[in-house]
């Protein structure tokens, strides 16, 4: 941060500021000349896209909060008023509600990119872990946000999820009462969820800052997983990636706008337009789509764990489901320490590559299982069996397959450098032309 070997700026105002607080030097170093691998594909757009979505959420959220009333008596009506009477309120609310979905789309793709290209591996472990922290905070924020309109799904989603904590041995019920501030989800709960929903995005912002800081210490990974070696391997961030990121962001925003303007309720549940009623549980409670795979894992455990043929139970079914759900995220934290294979990118790992694609399909299938009612069937079998199997596949990927691959997988030959791999790809695509 020292401004000792600072280059002078031509603009006198910029120079005046920079010699006192070198923010322009910082910007130039981190976003101007910052050396960036030259072989990024479009998967590398989603970090910038997620950042744009975070800012969108914070802006729309602050303006919604100006018309929102966080009380059980007023919440539902205030949201309807935002939709009907507040100038442009419908736009703010639809941008916010669909924005949450698109934020998750961007972040899920961003996470999968990291897994596919091994971006979590040494030396980027902390970068990855901060990313998982952001993901967890996002889930908490989105969950509390969904409670705010105080519809039936808000109320019952909040009831089911806060009740998860009652599974904690001994202190479970005390924790739930503490979360509620009462004996059920009620006015104190809504009030504190609003306070936290307002706060947490700013915490996310701070963690994103650390995440980007860590990124700029190690530099970006790239599709080959080979670190840049010479200047030939990189390009300055500006203008090459500022342009590519802007292009990706605009495409993404176009798709997002299509939902906001033409299908604004398609990702939400119609029951949330019914005011919350503590006496009537909807026949089929489903969380928002981005929680479905985890919800499926929660429901997969329907049996207690104990010594067979005795009454001794170590973990009752409810606690088992909760542990499995949180464990699935703990595994993401542990990933950099589980996967010790020296090759990063799935491109050069003939076994990891199909495995990670199957992992993705399995995750999507878990999402489907989570979207169905508890007594649904598939091919004549109870769906819960498939949920359990898919949960086992999720866990197996991390704790069985990855350690096995560490030992036995032989990688393909790595390109000597990013530059060479780019040249090789270019030659290949030119070859048919020459022939």
């Amino acid at each position, binding site marked *: 941060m020292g401004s000792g070997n600072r280059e002078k700026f031509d603009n006198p105002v910029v120079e005046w500021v920079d010699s006192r607080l070198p923010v322009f030097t910082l910007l130039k170093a981190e976003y101007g000349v910052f050396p960036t691998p030259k072989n990024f594909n479009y998967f590398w757009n989603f970090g910038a896209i997620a950042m744009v979505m975070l800012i969108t959420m914070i802006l729309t959220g602050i303006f919604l909060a100006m018309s929102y009333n966080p009380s059980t008596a007023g919440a539902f009506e205030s949201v309807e008023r935002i939709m009907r009477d507040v100038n442009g309120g419908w736009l703010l609310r639809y941008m916010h509600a669909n924005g949450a979905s698109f934020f998750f789309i961007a972040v899920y793709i961003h996470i999968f990119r990291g897994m596919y290209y091994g971006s979590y591996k040494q030396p980027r472990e902390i970068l990855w872990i901060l990313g998982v922290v952001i993901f967890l905070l996002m889930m908490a924020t989105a969950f509390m946000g969904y409670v705010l309109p105080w519809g039936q799904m808000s109320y019952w989603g909040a009831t089911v999820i806060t*009740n998860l904590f009652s599974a904690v041995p001994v202190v479970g019920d005390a924790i739930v009462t503490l979360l509620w*501030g009462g*004996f059920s989800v009620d006015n104190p709960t809504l009030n504190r969820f609003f306070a936290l929903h307002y706060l947490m995005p700013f915490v996310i912002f701070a963690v994103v800052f650390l995440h980007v800081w860590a990124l700029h210490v190690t530099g970006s990974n790239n599709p080959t997983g080979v670190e840049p070696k010479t200047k030939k391997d990189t390009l300055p961030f500006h203008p090459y990636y500022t342009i590519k990121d802007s292009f990706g962001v605009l495409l993404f925003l176009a798709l997002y706008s299509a939902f906001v303007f033409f299908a604004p309720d398609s990702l939400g549940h119609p029951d949330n337009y019914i005011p919350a009623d503590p006496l009537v*549980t909807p026949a089929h409670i489903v969380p928002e789509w981005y929680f479905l795979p985890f919800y499926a894992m929660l429901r997969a455990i*329907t049996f207690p764990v104990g010594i067979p043929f005795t009454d001794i139970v170590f973990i009752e079914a409810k606690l088992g489901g909760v542990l499995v759900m949180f464990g699935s995220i703990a595994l993401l934290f542990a990933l950099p320490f589980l996967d010790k294979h020296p090759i990063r990118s799935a491109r050069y790992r003939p076994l990891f590559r199909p495995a990670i694609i199957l992992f993705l399909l399995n995750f999507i299938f878990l999402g489907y299982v989570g979207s169905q*009612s508890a007594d649904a069937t598939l091919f004549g079998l109870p769906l819960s069996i498939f949920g359990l199997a898919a949960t086992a596949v999720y866990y197996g990927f991390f704790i069985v397959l990855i350690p096995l691959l560490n030992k036995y997988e032989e990688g393909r030959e790595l390109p000597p450098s990013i530059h060479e791999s780019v040249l090789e790809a270019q030659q290949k695509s030119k070859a048919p032309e020459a022939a």
Partner: protein
Amino acid sequence: MATKKTTKSAKSDSRRDFLALTAASFGAVGAGSVAWPFINSMNPAKDTLALSTTEVNLTPIQVGQSITVMWRGKPVFIRRRTEKEIAEARDVDTSKLIDPQSDEERVQNPEWLVLVGVCTHLGCVPSGQKVGESRGEYDGWFCPCHGSHYDTSGRIRKGPAPKNLAVPSYEFLNDNTTLKIG
């Protein structure tokens, strides 16, 4: 000479360690005692606690009928059970139950079953109160959220819920015509 010096510095090290540890523990206790009022402010407030009794007039309820009332923001099920339902509830080998409890332990007066209508799994309201709603495989209540079946004593018989439906504290007043819950 050298040994003497090491022992001496080791000694002063351990004194320093002691001071540092003591200071850190006091700091931790101090931080904890400041944190507690903040956390405790999230627990139910006095006025929330004060809303904790409800009185119900029982006279209009016929045998076989159920009603739902609110108590502490939660539904409470009151069922005036038929002879058949009472017999079903008592004709059970309690040792085979998920949460073993006899019907006698769960009622003050066999005709009146009073339950907190909140599934002990994750808090949904089980169906079975209204005529025509599913009562599950044991003729009591059925929770649609993840499929828990409760019997005519409100005991969990099948499904993911770990416990029987809770029995609130209650008493009969005015010659058994009024029920006071809480």
